[in-house]
Structures are given as structure tokens and as C-alpha cells.
């Protein structure tokens, strides 16, 4: 009887401890993406995912490795480079599903240390997630890098976390001239005004001659890159074999999470 009670108490303690660990590390998703577009990410720009990229590296390991990139905290001017860091309260995460599944069965996670010129960023995984869906728990750490300094981690993983120019390209001002649906409504009731532009900008005369078209040859105004705006980027180059364990087809997406969901 006493032994049973002890076992029961021990079991309960273990369950409680696990629940405590789960509670401590569990995180709720922050919903939102792109460049400060939704209220949630405007309120926490450090958790704003601007873009996710996946491509083969441009080096000798092109046929062996794959590069995963997660860009966050968009619209950093040059003046803000010294005061913008990864948010230590945010779990940054790349999720990977295999084959026909849409549920992640592998994750790569990142957690930042105290902000500053020597901020540390720890990479966890890739590995099987402890929980899936809208909650996340850190898995085993693989290694740590210092902000803006590339690092070689175990298992042939190359890791960089730091400031980089935003590679996203889109002439948004011109887009609104071509499709001016936003230029009507509250201030000008009635149907949208007619387009004031027919093409994007930045075309060359040679292009127009070659194709027999008259696209706009004035300088384009790409908001992010031509204005010199930057992001915080998390870049991982790793052997493809680490991600294709159960299927050669993978789906990759990114999430940011906090313990409060705010």
C-alpha cells in the first residue's frame, strides 16, 4: 500500500514536473507575416516574419546541401543597425513536413540571448518536434553563433544569424498605379479611378525594342532594397540528407512564438 502510494506520488510528481516543463517552454503562435502588415506583428516587430527562402547553396556543396533562410524584423534602416537585435522572448522556428503531410515532423528552432553586439543565437535541431501545431517546445540544442558572425556547428551545419539587406523586391508604388483599387473609398467615394500606369518601371530600351513593347523605362522604386532597408536573417546551410529522412519531398514554413502569444 505504502509502496503503491509512493509510486503514485512519484508518478504524479513526474507528471507535474513534465507539465511544468511543458508549461514553461510551451509557446503560442504569433499570427501574421510580411512587412509589418498586421496589428500583431506591428506590436511586436521582432516576431514579424518577412520572408522564407529555400535554395541550393552557391558553392561546392550545391548538390549535397540545402539553404534555409528565415527573415524577420523588416524595415531596419542603416541608422538602426546598432540598436536592432533578435528578440530573446521570441522562439523563431522553421517547420518541415515530409511527403503528403502538412504536419511538421522536423523543426529547426532558434533562441536569442541578451541583446547587444555579442548577442548569442542558439540553434536547436533539426529534430523531431516534442509537440506539433500551434504550440512549440524547444528540442535539443545543436550549437550557438554570435550575431553577424558565421558559425560552423556539428554535423556539417553552417549557421548565420544577423543583419542583412532585405532581398525582397517589389515596386509597390507602381503596383498601386497599375491596380489602383486602394485609391478609392473613404476619401473619394465611388468606383476606383482608372490606372495611371500600365507597366512596372525599370525596363530598358533594349528590352522594349527586343519585345516590341513600351514598358516604363524610368527608375523603379523598389521600397525595401532600393531604400537600403534591412532585416534580421537566420540562415542555415545543412546536408539535404538531414531533412529528407522519410521523403525527398519537403514542405517548409516558419513561425514565431512567444510564451504569451502577444
Amino acid at each position, binding site marked *: 500500500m505504502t509502496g503503491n502510494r509512493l509510486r503514485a506520488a512519484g508518478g504524479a510528481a513526474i507528471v507535474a514536473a513534465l507539465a511544468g516543463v511543458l508549461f514553461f517552454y510551451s509557446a503560442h503562435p504569433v499570427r501574421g507575416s510580411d512587412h509589418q502588415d498586421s*496589428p500583431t506583428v506591428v*506590436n*511586436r*516587430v*521582432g516576431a514579424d516574419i518577412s520572408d522564407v527562402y529555400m535554395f541550393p547553396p552557391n558553392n561546392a556543396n550545391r548538390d549535397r546541401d540545402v539553404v534555409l533562410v528565415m527573415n524577420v*524584423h523588416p*524595415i531596419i*534602416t*542603416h*541608422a*538602426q543597425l*546598432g*540598436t*536592432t*537585435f533578435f*528578440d*530573446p*522572448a521570441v522562439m523563431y522556428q522553421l517547420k518541415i513536413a515530409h511527403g503528403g503531410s502538412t504536419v511538421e515532423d522536423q523543426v529547426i528552432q532558434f533562441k536569442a540571448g*541578451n*541583446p547587444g553586439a555579442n548577442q548569442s543565437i542558439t540553434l536547436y535541431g533539426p529534430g523531431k518536434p516534442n509537440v506539433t501545431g500551434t504550440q512549440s517546445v524547444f528540442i535539443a540544442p545543436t550549437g550557438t553563433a554570435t550575431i553577424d558572425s558565421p558559425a560552423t556547428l556539428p554535423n556539417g551545419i553552417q549557421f548565420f544569424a544577423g543583419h542583412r539587406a532585405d532581398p525582397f523586391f517589389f515596386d*509597390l*508604388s507602381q503596383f*498601386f498605379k497599375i491596380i489602383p*483599387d*486602394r*485609391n*478609392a*473609398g*473613404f*476619401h*473619394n467615394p465611388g468606383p476606383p479611378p482608372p490606372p495611371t500606369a500600365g507597366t512596372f518601371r525599370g525596363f530598358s530600351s533594349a528590352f522594349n525594342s527586343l519585345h516590341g513593347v513600351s514598358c516604363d523605362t524610368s527608375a523603379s*522604386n523598389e*521600397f525595401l532594397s532600393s*531604400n*537600403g532597408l534591412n532585416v534580421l536573417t537566420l540562415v542555415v546551410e545543412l546536408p539535404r540528407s538531414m531533412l529528407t529522412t522519410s521523403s525527398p519531398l519537403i514542405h517548409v514554413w516558419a513561425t514565431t512564438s512567444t*510564451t*504569451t*502569444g*502577444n
Partner: protein
Amino acid sequence: MLMSRRTVWVAALCALAALIVWPWFIERRMTLEAQAALPTPAPVIADYASREQVVSFYERDARRHPDDQIIARLLATQYLQRFRERNDVGDLLRAQAQAQHSLALQPRNNIGADMTMTSALLSLHQFRSALRYVHEAEQIEPWNPAPTAQEISLQTELGRYDVADKLLRHPPPGMRRNDVWDGAQARYDEITGGLAHARRLIDRAMADADAVMDNPAETRAWYHMRSGELAFSAGDYLTAEQRFNEALAIFPSDAKALSGLARLAWANRRWPEALRFAARAAELLPTPETLGYEADAQRALGDPGAAAQTEDLIGAVERVGNARGINDRALAVYYAEHREHLADALRIARRDLAARDDIYAEDTLAWVLGANGRWAEARKYAREATRFDTEDARLQFHAGIIALRNDDVEEGRRRLGFALRLSPHFHPDYADQAKRALAELAGADGSKTALSGDKWH
């Protein structure tokens, strides 16, 4: 089984004691629970240090791309933030111009420009004009609590408390805890007699704002400053001082936190301290209120020449530094308290009431009318100002004196007592005057003639 009489008495006393301590217990438990639920503060980033370069960056880009509505909006946001950090009203006008430019380029679905316009107009005290833009923002994103919270702030400033109340009762569906919403609710509660709840809300908002590393330092400091203001209203001077100092640790150029410390020292007659803080605050933001603390401290420390010079500055604020009447209320209060420029004070107080018919404008006009000897007219506005029994000692003191001047001894006694219970050191002179008046009323059993010893201004 019958209980003895003694047992019945003991049980009754225990029940009574439990009833007495129950509210305290509940309050204490709620406070502890609220504290336990607060997030961990994030490190402070000195983002304000690079503000000038960031503004220059967007100004250059705006010149390069005059047809880009996004750059215009971002520049407007930076001007607005620089205003909050440096208090140059010119930045508000620049923010307004850039937001208008952005809206001209993209009139629809431009919520960022709408919200920046709203904030700029609110800071310029053009509350009614701001409503148009905040309504647009609410239509664009009805699920976003920020525009509605901003409208609640505007309606509260305009004294439309019924509208603010209705909005507060209908938050956007699924709204999570939100520091901006909590801030607006706290202001409403502060005005409508819920100071304790307002303090809990603002402390929660402060913790939430502190948890986000990328929040501007000035924004984080603002919540600490507001918590300090509410603590002062509640007579919790230690917390007030702590909060103002925290605000300064986060954002060292926080003129409002310095002014709060000056007011705290001024109210408690710690004149050297009041002078030191007021001078620092006035150097950053020369408002009539802060300059008033400085002048009073200089007078109390035996330097009438310096006090006269400081008062000249207050006059200069009225003449040249009162763009769009944003200092109207503070000017009228200062003139009424010091019995100076009383005709001007009346004109200014009426103008303030026309801009926003809130309880503080009503209180200011009531006190200025009293200072001009128009006590019967003052009564009407004092009654309006105190209709929510707002826990503001100065407002209650004004209403109490005005009631006594109108021979309403009962209300006068009640209001003065309320003021002193709220905050026993709310004012360097008025707190003592309230005590003397209550003592005299007790002695003279309500005779008006017993109150002739003090000048009620």
C-alpha cells in the same frame, strides 16, 4: 444543541471580522494574482539615440521618391515619435503633413497614415478632426483594438464618456490583453471614479509594454509615468516616486516623469528638490505647469527675482509657445492659482472647454470663475466636473471650496474631506487650506464667516 451566549458572540464577532477583511483579502488576492501573471521585462534598447539619423534617412528617401505613400507614412511615424521624445510641436505638424501626403497618394486602406494622423491631431488637441481618421482606421481593421482604443481616448478627451463607455463594453471580437486598450480603459476608469482599477490596468499595461524589447523606450517609459501619476492621485507617494524614477531609467529625457517628480516634491514642500526637477523638466519641455512648480519653488526658497523671470517665461508660453492652445488648461490653472491675469485665464479656460468638454476643462473653468469672484456660475461647472466623484484631490478641493462659497456646507465638507482622504499632500497650499477649513467648519458648525481666513486660490 443550543450554543452558549458567549459562543454566539464569538461566532458573530468572527463573522463580522471576516466581513470587514473580506474586501481587503479579495483586493490583495487580485493584486497578487495580477502580479504573478505579469511577463518578464525585456532589456531596454536606446532606440531614441538614433532617431535623428532615422528621420534623416526617411527624409532623404521621401525627397527621392515623392510619390511613395509608404515612405511618407514611415516618415510621418518617425516625426511623431521624435515629437514624443523631444516635444517639438513642429514635428507634429510635419507628421500631419506627411500622413496627409500618404493619404493623398493612397486614400484607401492606408491605416498606418490614418492612425498617425489621429495621433498627431490628438497631440495637437484637434480631437474632433482626429475622429474622422480614427473612424476610417476602425472601418479598415474592425478586428484591430488599436483604432478603437484610440477612439476611446479621443471620446474621453472630448468628455463624451457615454460613447467611450459603450466602446469599452464592445471590444473587437477575440481581443487579447492589449496595453493600448488597457491604457485607454485606465484613463476612463480614472475619470469615472475607478482609480484602484485604473491603477491595476495601467500596471498591467506597463508590464506588457515592458515585455516587448522593440517597443520604443519612450513608450515604455510613458506607462511608468502614467502609473506614477495615478499613484500620486491615490496618495501613494512612494510608488509614484518609484515609477517616475523607473521612467527616467528607461528614457532619461522623459520631461513628463521629471515634471511628475517636481510635482511630488512641490506638493510635499520639498522645495530644493522641486526646483531641481522642475528646472530639468522645463529645460526639456517648458510647460506652464512645470514652470509653475519652478517659480513656486524659487519663491519659497527666497528668490523672488528668479521666480519673476520664470513667470515671464510662462507669459511667453502663452504668447508664443501655445500653438493651437495645447497649453490652455495649464495656463488657466496657473493664473487662477496665483491670482494673475484673471481675465485672460477666463478667456483661456472657456477656449479649453470649447475644444474638449471633459471634466478637467469644467473644473478649470469653475476654478477660474471662482477666482474671478463668480462663485454661483462656478458652481454649475464644479458640479459637472465632479459628477463621477473622480478621485482627484485638486478637483474635489475646488468643488469643495466652491460649494462653501455657495453656502453648501455639507457638500463643501464632504468634498474637502474626500480630497484629503485621497491624497493628504496633493498641493503645497490647498491641502493645508482644506484641513483648516474642515477644522473651522467643525468649530463654527458650518458658519461661512469662519472661512474668511484663507484666500481660496
